[in-house]
């Protein structure tokens, strides 16, 4: 039997992937989820950028949690998050200009993604660094796979490709609506609906500890 510590750590990681998945379970971070997922690549890029920010912010918050007075904790968290978001934004603009252009204003908008502040406030500020890191990693990966799934479905139906590779033949007429905002709502709604239908767990406890 594994020691208790490992069990907790793997639990911290796993819960973000499915049981408390930020997108399909907690319905958090809807702005980037709906806005940038018109292709799998954009979903992946947004997922990675968010994962970077949530991990960095959670780790720092966990490290300094005993130093920060309760009254100014949110302000401090926001400064930390905003700094990491700016770093991610500048990094993308410098190294991956095309992705930066495709994601547009949604990279700076990671600041207001409630997943990040949510993890900082609900988890990182109450747990040791290694657990905060693993929790943030799980949430980031959970967020990413949901965005990649959404992006893949929309790209497949809207362009006939996934990650830019043509999947559908010449016979296929792209469904333009899938790469428009409407397609994001329809696809996400159907995904969540189907998952709820088949797992039968419509009321999962998503309250943050």
């Amino acid at each position, binding site marked *: 039997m594994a020691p208790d510590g490992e069990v907790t750590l793997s639990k911290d990681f796993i819960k973000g992937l499915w049981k408390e998945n930020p997108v399909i379970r907690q319905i958090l971070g809807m702005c980037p989820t709906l806005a940038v997922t*018109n292709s799998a690549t954009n979903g992946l890029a947004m997922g990675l950028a968010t994962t970077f920010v949530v991990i960095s912010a959670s780790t720092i918050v966990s490290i300094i949690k005993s*130093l*920060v*007075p309760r*009254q*100014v904790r949110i*302000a*401090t968290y926001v*400064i*930390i998050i*905003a*700094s990491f978001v*700016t*770093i991610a934004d*500048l*990094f993308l*603009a*410098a*190294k991956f*200009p095309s992705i930066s252009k495709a994601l547009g204003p949604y990279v700076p908008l990671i600041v207001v993604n409630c997943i990040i502040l949510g993890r900082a406030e609900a988890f990182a500020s109450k747990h040791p660094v290694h657990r905060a890191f693993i929790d943030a990693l799980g949430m980031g990966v959970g967020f990413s796979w949901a965005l990649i799934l959404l992006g893949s479905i929309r790209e497949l139906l*809207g362009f006939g490709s996934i990650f830019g590779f043509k999947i559908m033949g010449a016979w296929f007429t*792209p469904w*333009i609506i899938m*790469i*428009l905002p409407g397609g994001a709502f329809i696809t996400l709604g159907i995904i969540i609906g189907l998952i709820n239908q088949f797992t039968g767990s419509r009321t999962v406890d998503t309250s943050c500890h």
Partner: protein
Amino acid sequence: MDKRIIKMIVVLTATAVLSGGILALVYKKAEPLIEANRLRELKKAIFLVLPEAKDYKTVEKKGFNIYIGIDENGSQVGYAFVATGPGFQGKIKMMVGLANDMKTLTGMKVLEQVETPGLGNRISEDTFQGQFKGLSTEPEITYVKNKKPEKPNEIQAITGATISSKSVVAIVNKELKKVVKALKEEEVEKTYGP
């Protein structure tokens, strides 16, 4: 003062100063790269609309940045400029190439647009952009629908995206007029000026 308040001020200030410092460092590293990316994009677009150009120089005329294309012998091959205006859903930004005679376009490339995917955004496709190559600008550029263009100043609008096609033509016409006017005034100055 209350010790708690002092602690709050110290923590917040320290966080802000640290973040600011780190961001300044990152920005200093990233800025030249971002600027280089921008210039590379610009250069690519200019050479696309002025195919014979191997180099370019920027001149500013009446608030316009006009890029003068130069071939390998150092002689001028034409002008390029950025034309911006309203499309169907938002701003359309294009690079337009103009031959030395100022009566023929040497190319057009859409730089930025947010037209409807699958319809209006086909203005970025080569089949549409390509029509502007060799297009006569006198009289004004016009568009035809559902048939092949017959006159040298005509292009064929995209089926189902008349408004976007119309916008592109209108923007090019409008900005072209301004640029040609600015260039001609310059010529007058050159000829008769002191």
